[in-house]
């Protein structure tokens, strides 16, 4: 605290943060503003706090102003809405951008499957895509069978698989179920935990063990 504020001895307690922020953002009533201004005139500490807050607000705004949704997000929204409205999924691939490619590279296989899932919905994935057969190591992996909810779209499915480290490796069977492989080395405990988690997901209509 500075010499000035010690000698001035403000009559009231310091302004709280909520009030300072409201003051900074011009959200105070006339009466409140007058009282705040009176306090600020005689209190260095609160004036400094207001200056600090303004600086923090500017830096935060500058930081977040640099972040924008990916350009293709609107197309995702449109595609999902059209799917809901007409029950017809538009045969449009999501637009790409440089920013997406790093992510796409990592999950290209999952994206491909997931996009196709939406595009052809309940059609036979194997027949339509002729995807590569499983590698030898995948035969040793643990599996969960799932049926996706009709509302689940490619992105949600891809995100879901990515989060649990799952790979979509075959399907659908006659009941519309797809087989998901757990990451190599996953144990029984992970299997049970993943199964339980999947059963709580809105994108998953059904999850079972082989």
């Amino acid at each position, binding site marked *: 605290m500075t010499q000035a504020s010690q000698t001035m001895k403000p009559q009231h307690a310091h302004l709280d943060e*909520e009030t300072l922020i409201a003051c900074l953002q011009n959200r105070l009533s006339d009466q409140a503003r007058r009282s705040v201004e009176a306090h600020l005139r005689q209190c260095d500490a609160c004036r400094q706090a207001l200056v600090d*807050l303004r600086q923090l607000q500017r830096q*935060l705004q500058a930081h*977040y102003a640099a972040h924008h*949704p990916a350009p293709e997000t609107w197309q995702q*929204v449109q595609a*999902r809405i059209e799917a*809901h409205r007409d029950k017809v999924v538009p045969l449009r691939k999501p637009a790409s951008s440089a*920013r997406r490619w790093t992510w796409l590279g990592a999950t290209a296989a999952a994206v491909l499957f997931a996009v196709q899932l939406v595009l052809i919905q309940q059609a036979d994935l194997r027949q339509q895509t002729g995807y590569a057969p499983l590698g030898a190591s995948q035969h040793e992996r643990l599996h969960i069978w799932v049926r996706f909810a009709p509302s689940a779209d490619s992105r949600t499915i891809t995100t879901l698989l990515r989060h649990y480290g799952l790979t979509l490796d075959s399907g659908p069977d006659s009941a519309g179920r797809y087989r998901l492989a757990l990451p190599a080395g996953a144990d029984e405990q992970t299997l049970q935990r993943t199964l339980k988690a999947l059963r709580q997901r809105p994108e998953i209509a059904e999850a079972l063990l082989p």
Partner: protein
Amino acid sequence: MSRTVDDSRLRIWLQQVAEGDTRALRHLYDALAPSIYRFALSRLDDPHEADGIVSEVMVQVWQQAGRFEGRASVLTWVLGIAHHKVMDVWRRTRRDSEELDTVRPARPLDQALSETVTPAVEGEHAALNEACQACFDACLAQLPPAQRQALYLALVEEQPYQDIARILDCPTNTVKTRVFHARRFMQQCMAAWRREKAV
């Protein structure tokens, strides 16, 4: 961030969306998607997940526009929807981070310092400011996500505490505490950086 579109305009678009107008949805998207995205980012710190949140929220806005009761602003309502989706992702993917207010180990400040504090002899002032922004970013990344999110709503979206509490579905006192701790953390983190710089 100063809002370029006021709430009354957003309400008109929302009403049109409720009647099935996709052009109005596009207007809403343009006005709100950056806020939804940044809000998600403030908690999840993952651009891909934040994009997913934007998409899910806008689809829900499309489906539920007619349910808007007008008790809060459209932005508050939409960010409330976003919050639930953000928390779904949070619970699903950050199972080890149950404690909302613990500091998440992020990029160490020392590392940020060594990468950024190399001002050239000429234009030292500009370089210092630039370095300062980089350190600000580093401090922000170290802030506990729940606090960062509250700070974002208070200072970037300029939401009153009462509305922040509504968005985050928590008591106003929790908002107060989070903003307070967030500010103190940022102050101390930046002060540490300035001390380092002065050496």
